[in-house]
């Protein structure tokens, strides 16, 4: 079923909302009233509901099936969290109400802080970053602020492993740092010798992901952190993969100075087709004084929101309008309270168990990139497809026709034709088995020489493969009225 754009439907005379008639007073716009039509379409409520229902039916989603997208932690999104976030006592609060009228909301922020600090053993947390990359920015700006406070303006290099997410170097650049790549070793981890060799007094800090993007724990992490600190630099841990270790690993004892936590990954707030998320950043004692505003502090029976500098705090500034992603905080807190400390530990265990199960079932057929137990992601490369004429992309598209969302493709960049699978803890063994059966059957098919089956996939989707080159070469980024209609305007 084809679904036209809203601009191709309806008529400007229709309206899906009834509004009372405005009073007929002289306006006070100072002559700045808009003239002419905007060009928006008009649809009645039934048409709008149907349009977006039908569009939604063209999406794949966790609710509908397995979504083993590596590095994205696509887990179940409990509806309890949605219900809690919609309580009028949370959803209908203005950010600038007098603080006495929002004590419950400030308590939510304070409880969330307690959870994040309790789960990491860190000193302080900045709640306001809006997403993972924003949390990285928070951490690296705190590093920069600390260096500035120390007067060390020669430290302008940040070490980033080659396997890092693209956000890491982009963030470092935003903080005025130069990025130096660090190669990996044969085990899929940072090359310790190269790492140490790169540490000199121009180094401001290190951005490491652990578990790393190859799905492996950086087992030399403590040693690396000690070296970083010995060199006078700071250690930033990318917490994108925190779901593998939450409730099990004391982040503070790894030697971390700052780590962002994706509430929308580890703590199951929904991805919503691209956000919103939240990326609170936990900080060590060394960086805590530089945490951005606002802060929440318990005082007496209540909680106070601090929006301006007080006492000896040295915030590097403010990252976000208002007080952060409050609606996401409520959802994450609801999830943490539901699982509790024992449940979170069970969850990370199950997430790692599920990934290793995929590795065990697929590892003999697909080519595992590295040895040893993986963490919550299983990484394969495309050696098993060698000579078949089937690429990682083709293989992924064929998975769609089997009813599964593909794994992450071509990332990390350190292996060829990467396939990164993250099952998460909320998938059953039955689902993993069905997935493995399908993948193994596809692998057999690929090696049996049926390349066309793959290159022509997907077949059963609302659209077949889309021409991305055309989209980028001649960008059409908005609807335009057809030419005759324009002439008639």
């Amino acid at each position, binding site marked *: 079923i084809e679904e036209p754009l*809203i601009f191709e439907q309806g008529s*400007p*005379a229709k*309206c*899906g909302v009834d509004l009372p008639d405005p009073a007929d*007073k002289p306006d006070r*716009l100072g*002559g700045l009233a*808009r003239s002419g039509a*905007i060009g*928006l379409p008009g*649809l009645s409520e039934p048409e709008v509901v149907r349009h*977006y229902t039908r569009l*939604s*039916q*063209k*999406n*794949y*989603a966790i609710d509908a099936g397995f979504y083993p997208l590596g590095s994205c932690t*696509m887990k179940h999104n409990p509806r309890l969290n949605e219900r*809690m976030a*919609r309580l009028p006592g949370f959803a209908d*609060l*203005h950010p600038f*109400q007098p603080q006495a009228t929002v004590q*419950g909301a400030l308590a939510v922020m304070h409880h969330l802080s*307690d959870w994040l600090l*309790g789960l990491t053993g860190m000193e302080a947390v900045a709640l306001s970053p*809006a997403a993972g*990359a*924003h949390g990285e920015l928070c951490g690296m700006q705190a590093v920069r602020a600390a260096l500035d406070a120390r007067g060390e303006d020669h430290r302008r290099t940040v070490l980033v492993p080659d396997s890092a997410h*693209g*956000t890491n170097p*982009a*963030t470092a650049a935003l903080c005025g740092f130069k990025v130096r790549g660090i190669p990996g070793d044969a085990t899929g981890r940072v090359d310790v010798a190269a790492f140490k060799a790169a540490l000199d007094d121009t180094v401001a800090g290190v951005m490491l992901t652990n578990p790393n993007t190859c799905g492996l724990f950086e*087992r030399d*992490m403590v040693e690396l952190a000690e070296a970083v600190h010995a060199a006078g630099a700071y250690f930033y841990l990318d917490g994108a993969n925190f779901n593998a270790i939450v409730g*099990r690993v004391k982040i503070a*004892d790894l030697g971390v100075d700052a780590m962002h936590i994706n509430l929308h990954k580890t703590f199951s707030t929904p991805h*919503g087709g*691209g*956000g*919103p998320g939240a990326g609170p950043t936990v900080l060590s004692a060394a960086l805590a004084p530089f945490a951005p505003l606002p802060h929440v502090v318990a005082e007496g029976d209540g909680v106070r929101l601090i929006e301006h500098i007080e006492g000896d705090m040295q915030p590097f500034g*403010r990252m976000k*309008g*208002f007080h952060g992603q*409050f609606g*996401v905080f409520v959802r994450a807190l609801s999830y943490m*309270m539901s699982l509790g400390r024992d*449940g979170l530990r069970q969850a990370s265990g199950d997430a790692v168990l*599920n990934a290793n*199960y995929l590795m065990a079932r697929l590892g003999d057929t697909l080519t595992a990139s590295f040895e040893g*137990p993986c*963490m919550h992601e299983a990484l394969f490369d495309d050696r098993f497809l060698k000579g078949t004429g089937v690429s990682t992309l083709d293989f992924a598209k064929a998975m769609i026709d089997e009813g599964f*969302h593909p794994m992450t493709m071509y990332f990390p960049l350190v292996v060829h034709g990467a396939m990164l699978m993250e099952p998460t803890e909320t998938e*059953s*063994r039955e689902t993993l088995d069905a997935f493995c059966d399908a993948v193994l059957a596809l692998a057999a098919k690929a090696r049996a020489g049926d390349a066309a089956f793959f290159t022509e996939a997907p077949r059963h*989707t609302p659209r077949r*493969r889309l021409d991305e080159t055309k989209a980028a070469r001649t960008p*059409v980024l908005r609807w335009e009225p057809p030419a005759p209609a324009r002439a008639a305007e």
Partner: protein
Amino acid sequence: MRYLPLTDEDRRAMLARIGAASVDDLFSDVPAAAWTAPEGFDALPPHATEMAVERQLSALAARNVPAGSVPCFLGAGAYRHHIPASVDHLIQRGEFLTAYTPYQPEVSQGTLQTLFEFQTQVALITGMEVANASMYDAATGVAEAAAMACRITRRKHVLVSGGVHPHYGAVTESFLRYTDIATEVLDPNPLGIEDLMGRVSEKTACVIVQNPDFFGNLADLSALAAECHALGALLVVAVAEPVSLGLVTPPGEMGADIVVGEGHAIGSPLNFGGPGVGLFASRKKFVRHMPGRLAGETVDEDGRRGWVLTLSTREQHIRREKATSNICTNSGLIALAWTIHMTLLGEAGFTKLARLNHMKAVEMVERLEQVPGLQVMTRQFFNEVLVRLPGHDAAGIVETLAERGILAGVPLSRFHPNYPELADALLLCATETTETQDIDALANALTEVLR
């Protein structure tokens, strides 16, 4: 535990298949030093039933005063509008709510087409040529716009009007603090008067203004735009209240080069200020300097129209440290809510809603002008004005009225505690949800406390 599908039997069987003796064995790479529960961990509560979590969180929610439960005149960048029930119904559909960023377009056409509709709506109402698929919020959007202007002009100086929301200014300053860009934020200018024209130079990358400004003033920006363009600078216009664009001349028509808006007010509840959605539009020629995602039209193998994320070579996952921004996760779901609400409104509803807001504000102002000891400062406005309560501490007045069950606006001292001359200033806003009886309650209470 209700969210975890594995049974103990599953775990045993899976460990056997893996060849591990226990789940702990899978964590053997973790150094012993960190292989303990952190302090504070044991103080965290164990798992709880849905019933218990609901009870505890409901108790916290009950400790707040919902804005809709009392007469409410708060604005200052967050605006309370009525949201049709179908918006929230639709965004909760699992196919939207629980999908990831649409990286696999064949199974994401729903999200992609919606983003394309969003981009078109944003471009239309701002009067701009193109828009992206959203930023976190307006504050971060303004900061990104400043950086974008510097990329385009290859200049390093950003000038921020004192009429821009203090949070937008602060976030922009923070965002650019450690770059080689200098950000100059001017003092607050409650009457809308400041010499921006005189400060623009051939070194200026962009001038950032807000319309209506933080104090409610509406301004014609055409002359400023001309001056900027004459000097090779860009004009960035922030819009905190997107509903205003249904009634007021859009920034694009006044010559803006980049427009940033806060979208939460359409489609989303207040949510104590977050999450929001940053609207981000510009001239077409600047699109490759834009931060954030873009949905673009293309065709599939069978020649049928479809949509993909495009121009991703600007983005961090491809360009890494040379990216236009580090933004990755954005505000997809809030953008969806915005799009659905906007579609429900349509041309007729959006313009009527805007007029209704303005008329409510006019009604409020007319009533407030009768309150002795109160001065309405803003002359031309959309739905928000600045008033002064000479001789009174506005924050104290607001707290007093809150105890009487009226949320009587936002005192400027909340943003500018170090400007004693602003201590008597109060921002007051009306929307379509404001009733005449609410305005009466406010005016009567103010009359009493100002006596």
